[in-house]
């Protein structure tokens, strides 16, 4: 290495090379002498870097965790409770029998003050919206252009029924979630907004304004929700939310927003229609009310990660420091290497 640097002036026709900056750079490249720097990982610098990382990450973690804890969440699993006692042993027969009324009432106690807007989600667990067969079974072109678009082979096996094309086609549309919820407090209905729950881009770009459901849920097998054939797809926001398939097998989807504040101690009464079948594959259904803050909803993961990384950095730096104090090695000493070479 020493040689590389030391020999610059010995180059014979160097002057001709250095005529301009560019040819100088080229010369340096060709002679592998381009200026470069490389951090030297001495014990001191490594200890300092780890220490600094710890000092920066721990406060960030604390702040994030605090923010996450500020968001208040009420979670209620209702799929088991909403089945009458007599059907508990055979849930499947209850959910598939359309003659049995499916309504159910749940009471949610508010522990802490919740400030509007309060987001309403439904959560499905063990539901594979990311299954390959399922994800592929849709036609984005048809959602935008409707019947005009006829190449819907990707929608198999829900492409057509009774010889007529289905709009919207495909398994995702066919299996749409169809539980409904209404919310009241002390006999008065809560103000719930059901608009603006889908992405704006989806509404405007991906779902046609002139596309109306046709021949939907008319087959022998009925999947999930039915759609109003008089409303264009771009206005059916529950549908648009559902069509955005989740990546993980446990997911939440936005149902609406409560536009009033909830006092601590108050009880929210939820009237729901328990229509959707998760019983055949032992899935779970949950209803969630959640406030949000500057970090979004309640999620401890980020904060905990920061804390774990930060504290392990400090532990590592302390270990390194102790090792360094016990076995100090002067910079550039390679006697250990010589020993291994000699043997």
């Amino acid at each position, binding site marked *: 290495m020493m040689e590389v640097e030391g020999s610059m002036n010995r180059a014979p026709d160097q002057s001709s090379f250095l005529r301009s900056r560019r040819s100088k750079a080229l010369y340096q490249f060709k002679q592998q002498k381009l200026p470069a720097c490389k951090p030297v990982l001495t014990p001191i610098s490594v200890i300092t870097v780890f220490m600094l990382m710890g000092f920066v990450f721990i406060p960030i973690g604390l702040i994030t965790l605090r923010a996450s804890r500020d968001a208040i969440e009420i979670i209620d699993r209702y799929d088991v409770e909403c089945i009458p006692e007599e059907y508990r042993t055979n849930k499947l027969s209850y959910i598939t029998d359309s003659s049995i009324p499916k309504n159910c009432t749940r009471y949610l106690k508010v522990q802490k003050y919740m400030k509007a807007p309060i987001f309403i989600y439904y959560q499905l667990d063990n539901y594979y919206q990311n299954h390959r067969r399922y994800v592929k079974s849709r036609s984005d072109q048809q959602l935008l252009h409707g019947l005009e678009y006829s190449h819907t082979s990707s929608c198999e096996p829900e492409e057509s029924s009774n010889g007529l094309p289905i709009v919207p086609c495909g*398994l995702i549309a066919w299996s749409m979630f169809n539980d409904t919820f209404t919310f009241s407090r002390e006999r008065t209905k809560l103000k719930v907004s059901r608009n603006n729950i889908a992405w704006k881009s989806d509404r405007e770009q991906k779902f046609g304004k002139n596309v109306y459901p046709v021949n939907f849920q008319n087959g022998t097998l009925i999947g999930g929700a039915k759609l109003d054939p008089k409303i264009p797809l771009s206005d059916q926001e529950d549908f648009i939310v559902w069509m955005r398939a989740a990546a993980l097998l446990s997911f939440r989807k936005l149902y609406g927003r409560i536009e009033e504040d909830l006092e601590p101690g108050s009880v929210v009464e939820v009237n729901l229609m328990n229509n959707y079948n998760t019983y055949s594959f032992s899935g779970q259904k949950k209803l969630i009310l959640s406030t949000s803050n500057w970090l979004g909803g309640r999620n401890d993961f980020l904060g905990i990660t920061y804390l774990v990384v930060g504290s392990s950095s400090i532990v590592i730096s302390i270990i390194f420091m102790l090792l360094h104090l016990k076995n100090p090695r002067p910079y550039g000493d390679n006697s250990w290497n010589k020993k291994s070479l000699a043997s």
Partner: protein
Amino acid sequence: MKRFVYINDDEASKELCCDNRISNRKYTLWNFLPKNLWEQFSRFMNQYFLLIACLQLWSLITPVNPASTWGPLIFIFAVSASKEAWDDYHRYLSDKKANEKEVWIVKQGIKKHIQAQDIQVGNIVWLRENDEVPCDLVLLGTSDPQGVCYVETAALDGETDLKTRVIPSACVGIDLELLHKMKGVIECPIPDKDIRRFDANMRLFPPFIDNDVCSLTIKNTLLQSCYLRNTEWACGVSVYTGNQTKLGMSRGIAEPKLTAMDAMIDKLTGAIFVFQIVVVMVLGVAGNVWKDTEARKQWYVQYPEEAPWYELLVIPLRFELLCSIMIPISIKVSLDLVKGLYAKFIEWDVEMIDQETGTASYAANTAISEDLGQVEYILTDKTGTLTDNKMIFRRCCIGGIFYGNENGDALKDAQLLNAITSGSTDVIRFLTVMAICNTVIPVQSKAGDIVYKAQSQDEDALVIAAAKLHMVFVGKNANLLEIRFNGSIIRYEVLEILEFTSDRKRMSVVVKDCQNGKIILLSKGADEAILPYACAGQQTRTIGDAVEHYSQLGLRTLCLAWRELEENEYLEWSVKFKEASSLLVDREWRIAEVCQRLEHDLYILGVTAIEDRLQDGVPETIETLRKAGINFWMLTGDKQNTAIQIALSCNFISPEPKGQLLMIDGKTKEDVSRSLERVLLTMRITASEPKDVAFVIDGWALEIALKHHHKDFVELAILSRTAICCRVTPSQKAQLVEILKSCDYRTLAIGDGGNDVRMIQQADIGVGISGREGLQAARAADYSIGRFRFLKRLILVHGRYSYNRTAFLSQYSFYKSLLICFIQILRFWNQSFQFG
């Protein structure tokens, strides 16, 4: 097997194979694509990528767009194919140029101008000065009345000196006009690639000469790609054409060398492939099980009840595709690119340009730079590699008197100059041998100076020294030599030349003194090849001492000898010699035997000592490289004493008491065995001590050791860090490389002469010094450098950089691919195999 060539007879030669079309091409326009694809797909990695790409075409299983594999794959293939095509196109162009060159030939007695590719075997080809020889010819006539012409054979063997070629004795004196109508038959061996041998016979048909068989040797040929020099014209009959010429036969694509890193990458790829298959099997089985137990319950997926037969394969194949990035497709292209750059860095390096000649380093093999950083053994030649190969005559010992001992230069020794002027017989004879016992050609330059064209540097040094001592070799006119001594011209007629071979280790000439008609034998050679043949009465003790003394000073020694021959002794012998020279089989061996019969009872005149200076920076380079843990072996054809002396002066071995030299010698199997045993014992004992122990072995003992004690010798090779092998032949050099390679050492061979070519090709890395002994070694080598000291930079800077960079690049490539792949695998587990 023999071939009969009928001179000037189209009908008879027709069935004798091809025309003179040269083809170095690997492909034709039609077979390029299939052949190139076939070659590329013989690599495991490429087969793997093709399989993946084909699987991706099946839309049922592919998770990605097929273009993501086809794109890079086609790119990689296009890059390799166009590189091949480009090389091949250039070969085609140069072939075409050579094929369409216009030449003069004689057909049915008429001179015609045709393209070189239309030359048939048996045609008479005419060449003018500075023409390139289009095919292998047997010389029939030249402009020189004695039938001599000169050729430059640089393209063939890399030697830049001019060589003499003579017409066969049967053709001497044939008139220019008659040459056109010449008829005859040449009996020659089937085409081979030995450019130093041509054992053939010629018989001319009447009316030329009676049915006398005339022997032909390589001296009577003009080989393809040589140039005619210093001769107005020459003509010859073509015997080998096209790809059957000596050059055409010796062409051939050398086996590509693989680096340790390449082997490692191949191994790693195989291992990753196995791992990938395991992962795919586990995930595939689990996926199928999950599908049958869980997925059928997911009503929203609507699994069909009926499934096609290949259903079980679908999930494993999908996993295969998802895991296919474990083996990075980019690694081959990236490595090729960076390796090309390493080679360029070596060529660009201004510190590796030889200031004297202006030659830069050159990397002929771009693929093995990183092995430079892995070298464990360097096998080096001595002459021209460690030394300058600039021979200078320094001292001599004539008739027991040492000259040049005081001031180190015999040319300025007053005592010697006095002896010359006083006309001492021994001294004058000594000078005569120096001046004419050689194959040097004096060329009168335009300024009037005499320039010598010599095949060996030693001969050059001797002739020049003789000239400085007033014995000037003025001119060579066919067999007539002219020497100017003290103003008078002395003429000698050369009768025979008994050539130098590495087995004989001496050369002699038989000359006739034109003044008094005496026939004299002049010999020069290595001491052990001359001294045993001294005449009975002479004491060779002082000569032996002189040789010993000079070699201890690191000088090269030659013994000069002289004998007057009786007229009839010569004539008797000359018949036998002629007979041996016209043999088709074992000619070389027979000639050596016949020569032996003449070279005895020699009167030893004295010893010459020639200095061969060390190159600049050799000791420092060797010391630095040894500090880097690299072991050195010196393989030389030179004498043991000279070799040891040079080894001492360039830090190769340390003097006592720090170093110790262990000799392995002996002439018989038992001697060598005992000696080897002893050395091995010492080696084992001293292995732990910090002492430089080196063994010295000569070619003879090496032969025996390799034959009978191969195992012991291999152990010795592993134990010793330094070795000096002297008096070794080119094939022994290659054998030694082979032994070290078989012990799994990375070897680098460095040399400069034709005798190093085999060792250079054999070693993992061959380095040639583009020096004075021609370009043969540099041409065969992977790297050629101008000076030995550049080896330090080549290994320690370029080798290390290349090794580190390639290691980083390949590790990073695999790391990156595996990382991406593991993210996916982890997700499969996490999601309980939802990819049904």
